[in-house]
């Protein structure tokens, strides 16, 4: 409300953030995994005096320089760009409360890129001992980026004691911090193995090293396969109770527009962990000769999908908050919207950035609804409100006001605003719904 806001029709603001964020997570978790994979593999190769394996490491590290320091970083900046514009209030909140963490994160990231660059360009020039040291430094710094950012990400879902004591440390090490760290670390190892498979599969088939490196990379999936199922269970039991209940909402019934899809997508993450384990076993480990580029494409697609599904589950689990118990998805502070008296306070004067000629209703729609809904695209209001006139929309808005009677309180932020403001929002929505494009 205090900042201008970027309005995106179609995929919607969350859609844009999601697309950038999933790409970023996919690449940066691979970077962290690679930070472990490269030095460990180099260490093993040096211990065995295996020159071919060492050459593999060299070829493999080129991948990392391009992907993590260039593409990964670009997507990282993209996230800041998108969240700052789509949900400025929540972004400002996170910056204010975690200045220290962000600073630490950026220092680690800088060191990570630095050590990676030295690592890659030092393959021929540095002494084996120094090169190995740089490798370990790369591993340590890349792990630390995960350790730091994980605190902020999990804080948003389960702020835990922070709600009472507002202490930086209870925010960082919140209830889901450790299980989440474990799961993310396992994902990093798995992705490192997957990328190892890509490099290995491109070696000539007659080369004995190909089979060896394929089986070696495949083994990197073992910890993930074995421990992930327990990590998920741990995470589940650390979730706030309301979030646990949400995960059950889709066991029966398939109605659209509710959170049943959350159950389905979380089921898919378990399912894909299992099928990907089998794919790596049947494909790369047991049958390395037939493990071709075509097969890897599907493995990578599965990995990308399950990354997206996992992140999406975590994001939606947080509903109706963007920061658990503290701030609603639309930037309204939970403390400002608890009872009916809060609802009565006018909201329009708080919207500081207005478009020229914008009605009160439209401004309210932009600030209160747009962070999750669009008119015709993602979670489309024109479709959800189809067949309702202004009066029935107003009735619907009234039952969505703060308080325990609001049936949507577990999945949606309450609607705030005085009676007249609600009426103008209903008027605006009514007009938009009536003006629905005929082709639907």
């Amino acid at each position, binding site marked *: 409300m205090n900042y201008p806001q970027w309005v995106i029709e179609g995929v919607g603001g969350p859609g844009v953030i999601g697309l950038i964020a999933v790409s970023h997570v996919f690449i940066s978790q691979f970077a962290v995994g690679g930070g472990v994979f490269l030095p460990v593999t180099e260490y093993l190769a040096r211990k065995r005096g295996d020159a071919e394996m060492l050459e593999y490491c060299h070829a493999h590290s080129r991948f990392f320089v391009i992907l993590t320091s260039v593409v990964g970083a670009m997507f990282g900046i993209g996230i800041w760009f998108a969240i700052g514009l789509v949900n400025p209030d929540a972004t400002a909140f996170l910056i204010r409360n975690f200045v220290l963490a962000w600073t630490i994160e950026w220092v680690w990231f800088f060191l990570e890129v630095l050590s990676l660059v030295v690592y890659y360009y030092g393959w021929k020039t540095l002494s084996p001992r120094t090169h190995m040291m740089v490798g370990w430094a790369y591993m340590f710094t890349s792990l630390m980026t995960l350790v730091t950012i994980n605190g902020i990400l999990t804080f948003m879902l389960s702020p835990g004691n922070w709600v009472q004591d507002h202490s930086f440390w209870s925010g960082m090490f919140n209830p889901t911090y450790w299980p989440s760290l474990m799961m993310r670390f396992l994902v990093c190892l798995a992705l490192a193995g997957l990328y190892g498979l890509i490099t290995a599969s491109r070696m000539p088939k007659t080369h004995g090293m190909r089979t060896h490196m394929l089986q070696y990379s495949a083994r990197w999936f*073992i910890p993930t396969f*074995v421990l992930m*199922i327990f990590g998920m269970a741990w995470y589940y039991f650390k979730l706030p109770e309301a979030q646990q209940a949400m995960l059950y909402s889709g*066991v029966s019934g398939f109605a659209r527009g509710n959170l049943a899809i959350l159950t389905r997508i979380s*089921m898919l993450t*378990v399912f894909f962990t*299992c099928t990907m384990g*089998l794919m790596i076993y049947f494909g790369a480990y047991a049958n390395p000769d037939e493990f071709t580029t075509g097969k890897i494409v599907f493995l990578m697609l599965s990995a990308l999908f399950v990354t997206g599904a996992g992140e999406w589950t975590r994001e939606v689990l947080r509903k109706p908050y963007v920061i658990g118990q503290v701030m609603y998805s639309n930037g309204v502070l939970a403390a400002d919207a608890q009872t009916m008296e809060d609802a009565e306070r006018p909201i329009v004067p708080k919207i500081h950035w207005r478009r020229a000629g914008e009605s009160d209703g439209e401004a309210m729609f932009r600030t209160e609804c747009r962070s999750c809904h669009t008119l015709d695209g993602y979670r489309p209001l024109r479709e959800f409100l189809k067949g309702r006139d202004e009066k029935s929309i107003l009735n619907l808005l009234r039952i969505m006001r703060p308080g325990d009677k609001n049936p949507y309180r577990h999945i949606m932020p309450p609607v705030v605003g005085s009676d007249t403001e609600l009426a103008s929002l209903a008027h605006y929505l009514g007009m938009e719904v009536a003006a629905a494009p005929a082709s639907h």
Partner: protein
Amino acid sequence: MNMNRRHWLDWVLKGVTGLYGLVLAVPLVKFLQSGEGETEEKVSQIKLEKNVVPEPGTSKIFKFGSKPGILIRRMDGTVHALTATCMHLGCTVDYSKEEDRIACACHGGRYDASTGANISGPPPAPLTQLKLEEKADGFYVSKN
């Protein structure tokens, strides 16, 4: 790698694969388990007409919730209500006028017609007595 360690790892992998199988089988089991109707109907009291047991030696089986109950006017004229599901294997019992007892036709179990105590045959436990109130307009049966 050490042979023993490899063997151990092999078992861990097999075990975890089995665990995934179990987790993924949950939807299937849940699906097959889903049935119709509520588990136990909550009935507190039902009313039976006076004329269902008009004279000594008559009885009437009635529906009490989802299970049967039996109303008996014994040879001595007293009226009793009990659950009618045999404690042995769940057959529905009946009142035997000749013996003045409750008899189960399936495996020959016998119960006392007033208290429901298991007298002879295979039943391991007595039938439960139901609370019976005789009012002017009929019998009122409820849980004890």
